Protein backbone atom coordinates (compact mmCIF):
# COMPACT_ATOMS: atom_id res chain seq x y z
CA UNK A 1 0.00 0.00 0.00
CA UNK A 2 1.32 3.43 -0.93
CA UNK A 3 0.69 6.97 0.22
CA UNK A 4 -2.57 8.26 -1.23
CA UNK A 5 -5.20 10.95 -0.94
CA UNK A 6 -8.78 9.90 -0.30
CA UNK A 7 -11.87 12.03 -0.97
CA UNK A 8 -14.73 12.10 1.53
CA UNK A 9 -18.23 13.51 1.59
CA UNK A 10 -19.39 13.57 5.21
CA UNK A 11 -22.79 14.29 6.70
CA UNK A 12 -22.39 17.20 9.09
CA UNK A 13 -24.96 18.41 11.58
CA UNK A 14 -24.48 20.18 14.87
CA UNK A 15 -27.96 21.06 16.20
CA UNK A 16 -26.44 23.86 18.31
CA UNK A 17 -24.97 25.64 15.26
CA UNK A 18 -26.56 24.36 12.05
CA UNK A 19 -30.08 25.05 10.82
CA UNK A 20 -29.98 21.96 8.64
CA UNK A 21 -27.63 19.06 7.92
CA UNK A 22 -25.17 19.43 5.01
CA UNK A 23 -22.53 17.33 3.27
CA UNK A 24 -18.89 18.40 3.76
CA UNK A 25 -16.39 17.59 1.01
CA UNK A 26 -12.97 16.89 2.49
CA UNK A 27 -9.85 14.95 1.49
CA UNK A 28 -7.19 13.35 3.63
CA UNK A 29 -3.65 12.05 2.98
CA UNK A 30 -3.13 8.48 4.11
CA UNK A 31 0.03 6.60 5.05
CA UNK A 32 0.74 3.11 3.67
CA UNK A 33 -0.21 1.72 7.09
CA UNK A 34 -3.74 3.18 6.96
CA UNK A 35 -5.93 0.29 5.83
CA UNK A 36 -9.35 0.63 7.42
CA UNK A 37 -11.92 3.41 7.15
CA UNK A 38 -11.44 4.14 10.85
CA UNK A 39 -7.74 4.88 10.21
CA UNK A 40 -8.83 7.51 7.70
CA UNK A 41 -11.39 8.92 10.13
CA UNK A 42 -8.63 9.30 12.73
CA UNK A 43 -6.59 11.31 10.18
CA UNK A 44 -9.71 13.26 9.26
CA UNK A 45 -10.36 14.13 12.91
CA UNK A 46 -6.78 15.41 13.18
CA UNK A 47 -7.38 17.64 10.15
CA UNK A 48 -10.82 18.93 11.22
CA UNK A 49 -11.49 18.29 14.90
CA UNK A 50 -15.15 19.37 14.68
CA UNK A 51 -16.03 16.06 12.98
CA UNK A 52 -17.76 13.79 15.50
CA UNK A 53 -18.06 10.00 15.42
CA UNK A 54 -18.11 7.17 17.97
CA UNK A 55 -15.33 4.62 18.19
CA UNK A 56 -13.79 2.49 20.86
CA UNK A 57 -12.12 -0.88 20.32
CA UNK A 58 -11.16 -0.33 16.63
CA UNK A 59 -11.42 -4.08 15.91
CA UNK A 60 -15.08 -4.93 15.34
CA UNK A 61 -15.94 -6.00 18.88
CA UNK A 62 -17.56 -2.94 20.49
CA UNK A 63 -19.87 -1.94 17.64
CA UNK A 64 -19.42 1.80 18.28
CA UNK A 65 -18.37 3.01 14.83
CA UNK A 66 -21.37 1.76 12.86
CA UNK A 67 -22.32 4.21 10.11
CA UNK A 68 -23.73 4.37 6.62
CA UNK A 69 -20.75 3.96 4.27
CA UNK A 70 -21.41 4.63 0.57
CA UNK A 71 -25.09 3.82 1.18
CA UNK A 72 -24.54 0.61 3.14
CA UNK A 73 -24.39 0.23 6.91
CA UNK A 74 -21.14 -1.12 8.28
CA UNK A 75 -18.37 -0.72 10.85
CA UNK A 76 -15.67 1.80 9.94
CA UNK A 77 -13.03 -0.33 11.66
CA UNK A 78 -13.80 -3.43 9.56
CA UNK A 79 -14.18 -1.67 6.20
CA UNK A 80 -11.17 -1.67 3.85
CA UNK A 81 -10.61 1.87 2.67
CA UNK A 82 -9.23 0.87 -0.73
CA UNK A 83 -12.32 -1.13 -1.62
CA UNK A 84 -14.57 1.92 -1.32
CA UNK A 85 -15.59 4.04 -4.30
CA UNK A 86 -14.58 7.71 -3.93
CA UNK A 87 -15.71 10.14 -2.74
CA UNK A 88 -16.53 7.97 0.26
CA UNK A 89 -19.96 9.11 1.42
CA UNK A 90 -20.42 8.82 5.18
CA UNK A 91 -23.84 9.30 6.75
CA UNK A 92 -25.33 8.41 10.15
CA UNK A 93 -27.21 5.12 10.51
CA UNK A 94 -30.61 5.71 8.84
CA UNK A 95 -33.82 5.97 10.83
CA UNK A 96 -32.43 7.02 14.21
CA UNK A 97 -32.33 10.62 15.51
CA UNK A 98 -29.00 12.34 14.81
CA UNK A 99 -27.18 13.71 17.84
CA UNK A 100 -24.30 15.18 15.87
CA UNK A 101 -22.63 14.38 12.51
CA UNK A 102 -22.60 10.55 12.22
CA UNK A 103 -23.51 9.97 15.88
CA UNK A 104 -27.08 8.72 16.39
CA UNK A 105 -29.32 8.34 19.42
CA UNK A 106 -29.68 4.57 19.95
CA UNK A 107 -32.27 4.80 22.79
CA UNK A 108 -35.07 3.26 20.70
CA UNK A 109 -32.79 0.46 19.53
CA UNK A 110 -31.78 -0.49 23.07
CA UNK A 111 -35.35 -0.15 24.33
CA UNK A 112 -36.36 -2.87 21.89
CA UNK A 113 -33.35 -4.96 22.91
CA UNK A 114 -34.30 -4.71 26.59
CA UNK A 115 -37.94 -5.60 25.81
CA UNK A 116 -36.94 -9.18 24.92
CA UNK A 117 -35.29 -9.68 28.35
CA UNK A 118 -31.76 -10.36 27.11
CA UNK A 119 -30.68 -12.49 30.05
CA UNK A 120 -31.03 -16.10 31.12
CA UNK A 121 -34.18 -16.85 33.12
CA UNK A 122 -33.82 -19.94 35.26
CA UNK A 123 -35.49 -20.23 38.66
CA UNK A 124 -33.74 -23.42 39.75
CA UNK A 125 -31.11 -22.92 42.46
CA UNK A 126 -27.76 -22.52 40.70
CA UNK A 127 -25.63 -25.68 40.74
CA UNK A 128 -22.31 -25.64 42.52
CA UNK A 129 -20.26 -24.96 39.40
CA UNK A 130 -22.26 -24.06 36.28
CA UNK A 131 -25.38 -24.91 34.28
CA UNK A 132 -24.14 -27.39 31.71
CA UNK A 133 -25.29 -27.92 28.12
CA UNK A 134 -24.59 -30.76 25.72
CA UNK A 135 -22.27 -29.80 22.82
CA UNK A 136 -25.27 -30.18 20.43
CA UNK A 137 -27.41 -27.78 22.49
CA UNK A 138 -24.51 -25.34 22.69
CA UNK A 139 -24.11 -25.56 18.91
CA UNK A 140 -27.53 -23.91 18.46
CA UNK A 141 -26.24 -20.70 20.06
CA UNK A 142 -23.55 -20.23 17.41
CA UNK A 143 -24.39 -17.40 15.07
CA UNK A 144 -26.54 -15.79 17.79
CA UNK A 145 -24.32 -14.88 20.74
CA UNK A 146 -21.75 -13.12 18.52
CA UNK A 147 -24.00 -10.07 17.99
CA UNK A 148 -22.28 -6.86 19.11
CA UNK A 149 -25.41 -4.64 18.98
CA UNK A 150 -23.91 -2.17 16.50
CA UNK A 151 -27.43 -1.57 15.06
CA UNK A 152 -26.30 -1.90 11.43
CA UNK A 153 -29.08 -4.46 10.79
CA UNK A 154 -32.01 -2.79 12.54
CA UNK A 155 -31.25 0.59 10.93
CA UNK A 156 -31.12 -1.09 7.49
CA UNK A 157 -34.61 -2.51 8.01
CA UNK A 158 -37.56 -0.51 6.56
CA UNK A 159 -39.94 -2.16 9.04
CA UNK A 160 -37.78 -0.77 11.85
CA UNK A 161 -37.70 2.66 10.17
CA UNK A 162 -41.52 2.85 10.03
CA UNK A 163 -42.25 1.32 13.46
CA UNK A 164 -39.16 1.55 15.70
CA UNK A 165 -41.39 1.82 18.78
CA UNK A 166 -43.31 -1.39 17.99
CA UNK A 167 -41.16 -3.68 15.83
CA UNK A 168 -38.38 -5.37 17.84
CA UNK A 169 -36.07 -5.27 14.82
CA UNK A 170 -33.56 -7.85 13.55
CA UNK A 171 -30.97 -7.29 16.32
CA UNK A 172 -33.55 -7.65 19.10
CA UNK A 173 -35.12 -10.71 17.48
CA UNK A 174 -31.73 -12.38 16.98
CA UNK A 175 -31.06 -11.80 20.69
CA UNK A 176 -34.56 -13.08 21.54
CA UNK A 177 -33.88 -16.32 19.69
CA UNK A 178 -30.49 -16.61 21.41
CA UNK A 179 -32.40 -17.06 24.72
CA UNK A 180 -35.32 -19.02 23.23
CA UNK A 181 -32.78 -21.50 21.84
CA UNK A 182 -30.88 -21.77 25.13
CA UNK A 183 -31.72 -25.09 26.83
CA UNK A 184 -30.82 -23.58 30.21
CA UNK A 185 -33.54 -20.93 29.88
CA UNK A 186 -36.94 -21.71 31.42
CA UNK A 187 -39.00 -18.84 30.03
CA UNK A 188 -39.40 -20.05 26.44
CA UNK A 189 -43.20 -19.85 26.51
CA UNK A 190 -43.26 -16.36 27.99
CA UNK A 191 -40.67 -15.24 25.44
CA UNK A 192 -42.78 -16.59 22.58
CA UNK A 193 -45.93 -14.99 24.08
CA UNK A 194 -44.11 -11.67 24.27
CA UNK A 195 -43.21 -11.86 20.58
CA UNK A 196 -46.49 -13.21 19.22
CA UNK A 197 -47.67 -9.90 17.89
CA UNK A 198 -48.34 -8.49 14.43
CA UNK A 199 -45.87 -5.68 15.17
CA UNK A 200 -43.20 -7.08 17.45
CA UNK A 201 -42.34 -10.08 15.27
CA UNK A 202 -44.54 -10.17 12.19
CA UNK A 203 -43.44 -6.78 10.79
CA UNK A 204 -40.51 -8.76 9.38
CA UNK A 205 -41.29 -9.22 5.70
CA UNK A 206 -38.09 -11.25 5.12
CA UNK A 207 -36.36 -8.78 2.81
CA UNK A 208 -33.02 -9.73 4.42
CA UNK A 209 -31.38 -6.28 4.48
CA UNK A 210 -30.18 -7.29 7.95
CA UNK A 211 -28.27 -10.29 6.61
CA UNK A 212 -26.80 -8.16 3.83
CA UNK A 213 -25.25 -5.58 6.19
CA UNK A 214 -24.31 -7.54 9.34
CA UNK A 215 -20.57 -6.87 9.85
CA UNK A 216 -20.30 -10.05 11.90
CA UNK A 217 -21.84 -12.21 9.16
CA UNK A 218 -24.86 -13.19 11.27
CA UNK A 219 -28.30 -14.11 9.96
CA UNK A 220 -31.19 -12.47 11.87
CA UNK A 221 -33.69 -13.56 9.19
CA UNK A 222 -32.88 -17.21 9.91
CA UNK A 223 -33.34 -16.62 13.66
CA UNK A 224 -36.70 -14.92 13.00
CA UNK A 225 -37.73 -17.91 10.87
CA UNK A 226 -36.85 -20.24 13.75
CA UNK A 227 -38.93 -18.17 16.18
CA UNK A 228 -41.93 -18.42 13.81
CA UNK A 229 -41.26 -22.14 13.46
CA UNK A 230 -41.33 -22.63 17.25
CA UNK A 231 -44.54 -20.62 17.53
CA UNK A 232 -46.13 -22.77 14.86
CA UNK A 233 -45.01 -25.99 16.51
CA UNK A 234 -46.50 -25.03 19.86
CA UNK A 235 -49.73 -23.84 18.20
CA UNK A 236 -50.67 -26.87 16.11
Amino acid at each position, binding site marked *: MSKRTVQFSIYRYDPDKDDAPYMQEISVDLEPTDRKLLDALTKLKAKDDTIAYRRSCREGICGSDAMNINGKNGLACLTDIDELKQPIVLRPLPGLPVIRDVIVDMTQFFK*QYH*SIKPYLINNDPPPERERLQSPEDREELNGLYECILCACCSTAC*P*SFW*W*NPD*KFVGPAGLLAAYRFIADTRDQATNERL*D*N*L*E*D*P*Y*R*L*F*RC*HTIMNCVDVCPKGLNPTKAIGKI*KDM*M*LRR*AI
Partner: protein
Amino acid sequence: MINRTVVGAHYGLKDWIIQRATAVIMAVYSTLMLAVLLIVRPGTFEAWQGLFANGVIKFLTFLFFVSLFYHAWIGIRDIWMDYVKPTGLRLGLHVLTVTLLVGYTAWAAAILWRL
Protein backbone atom coordinates in the same frame (compact mmCIF):
# COMPACT_ATOMS: atom_id res chain seq x y z
CA MET B 1 -47.88 9.89 24.55
CA ILE B 2 -48.23 6.99 26.96
CA ASN B 3 -45.12 4.86 27.36
CA ARG B 4 -46.84 1.49 27.41
CA THR B 5 -44.89 -1.63 28.32
CA VAL B 6 -44.26 -3.61 25.18
CA VAL B 7 -45.75 -7.10 25.25
CA GLY B 8 -47.18 -9.39 22.60
CA ALA B 9 -50.77 -8.86 21.43
CA HIS B 10 -50.98 -12.66 21.19
CA TYR B 11 -52.03 -12.82 17.58
CA GLY B 12 -50.30 -12.64 14.23
CA LEU B 13 -49.13 -16.23 13.82
CA LYS B 14 -52.45 -17.30 12.27
CA ASP B 15 -52.36 -14.51 9.67
CA TRP B 16 -48.77 -15.30 8.84
CA ILE B 17 -49.44 -19.00 8.29
CA ILE B 18 -52.69 -18.35 6.37
CA GLN B 19 -50.81 -16.02 4.03
CA ARG B 20 -48.43 -18.87 3.25
CA ALA B 21 -51.18 -21.50 2.93
CA THR B 22 -53.24 -19.35 0.56
CA ALA B 23 -50.12 -18.73 -1.53
CA VAL B 24 -49.67 -22.50 -1.90
CA ILE B 25 -53.34 -22.95 -2.87
CA MET B 26 -53.03 -20.23 -5.53
CA ALA B 27 -49.81 -21.73 -6.91
CA VAL B 28 -51.33 -25.22 -7.12
CA TYR B 29 -54.54 -23.89 -8.74
CA SER B 30 -52.60 -21.84 -11.29
CA THR B 31 -50.49 -24.84 -12.30
CA LEU B 32 -53.52 -27.16 -12.46
CA MET B 33 -55.56 -24.65 -14.45
CA LEU B 34 -52.73 -24.09 -16.91
CA ALA B 35 -52.52 -27.85 -17.47
CA VAL B 36 -56.32 -28.12 -17.89
CA LEU B 37 -56.39 -25.24 -20.39
CA LEU B 38 -53.52 -26.78 -22.37
CA ILE B 39 -55.36 -30.12 -22.54
CA VAL B 40 -58.90 -28.84 -23.18
CA ARG B 41 -57.89 -25.80 -25.27
CA PRO B 42 -61.30 -24.12 -25.10
CA GLY B 43 -61.75 -22.00 -28.23
CA THR B 44 -65.35 -20.82 -28.01
CA PHE B 45 -67.54 -19.26 -25.33
CA GLU B 46 -69.50 -22.50 -25.09
CA ALA B 47 -66.28 -24.48 -24.48
CA TRP B 48 -65.24 -22.09 -21.68
CA GLN B 49 -68.75 -22.29 -20.22
CA GLY B 50 -68.63 -26.10 -20.35
CA LEU B 51 -65.30 -26.13 -18.60
CA PHE B 52 -66.53 -23.97 -15.72
CA ALA B 53 -69.85 -25.86 -15.51
CA ASN B 54 -67.78 -28.71 -14.05
CA GLY B 55 -68.42 -28.79 -10.28
CA VAL B 56 -64.79 -29.50 -9.36
CA ILE B 57 -63.43 -26.64 -11.50
CA LYS B 58 -66.10 -24.36 -10.07
CA PHE B 59 -65.19 -25.28 -6.50
CA LEU B 60 -61.43 -24.97 -7.11
CA THR B 61 -61.88 -21.62 -8.84
CA PHE B 62 -63.94 -20.32 -5.94
CA LEU B 63 -61.33 -21.63 -3.50
CA PHE B 64 -58.70 -19.78 -5.55
CA PHE B 65 -60.62 -16.51 -5.28
CA VAL B 66 -61.22 -16.90 -1.56
CA SER B 67 -57.48 -17.58 -1.11
CA LEU B 68 -56.62 -14.58 -3.27
CA PHE B 69 -58.84 -12.24 -1.29
CA TYR B 70 -57.68 -13.55 2.11
CA HIS B 71 -54.06 -13.29 0.95
CA ALA B 72 -54.74 -9.75 -0.27
CA TRP B 73 -56.36 -8.83 3.06
CA ILE B 74 -53.22 -9.78 5.02
CA GLY B 75 -50.94 -8.04 2.52
CA ILE B 76 -52.97 -4.83 2.29
CA ARG B 77 -53.46 -4.74 6.07
CA ASP B 78 -49.69 -5.03 6.44
CA ILE B 79 -49.25 -2.00 4.19
CA TRP B 80 -51.72 0.04 6.26
CA MET B 81 -49.97 -1.11 9.47
CA ASP B 82 -46.56 -0.17 8.09
CA TYR B 83 -47.34 3.26 6.71
CA VAL B 84 -50.61 4.67 8.10
CA LYS B 85 -50.16 5.92 11.66
CA PRO B 86 -53.40 7.78 12.62
CA THR B 87 -55.66 5.18 14.25
CA GLY B 88 -58.91 6.56 12.85
CA LEU B 89 -57.65 6.69 9.28
CA ARG B 90 -56.14 3.22 9.57
CA LEU B 91 -59.35 1.75 10.99
CA GLY B 92 -61.27 3.36 8.13
CA LEU B 93 -58.89 1.84 5.57
CA HIS B 94 -59.16 -1.58 7.27
CA VAL B 95 -62.96 -1.46 7.09
CA LEU B 96 -62.86 -0.29 3.47
CA THR B 97 -60.45 -3.10 2.53
CA VAL B 98 -62.54 -5.77 4.26
CA THR B 99 -65.75 -4.46 2.69
CA LEU B 100 -64.23 -4.48 -0.80
CA LEU B 101 -62.74 -7.97 -0.41
CA VAL B 102 -65.96 -9.47 1.00
CA GLY B 103 -67.81 -7.79 -1.87
CA TYR B 104 -65.37 -9.26 -4.39
CA THR B 105 -65.85 -12.72 -2.88
CA ALA B 106 -69.64 -12.49 -3.27
CA TRP B 107 -69.20 -11.12 -6.79
CA ALA B 108 -66.83 -13.99 -7.72
CA ALA B 109 -69.41 -16.50 -6.43
CA ALA B 110 -72.20 -14.79 -8.36
CA ILE B 111 -70.18 -14.89 -11.61
CA LEU B 112 -69.10 -18.51 -11.15
CA TRP B 113 -72.58 -19.81 -10.38
CA ARG B 114 -74.27 -17.73 -13.06
CA LEU B 115 -72.25 -19.43 -15.79
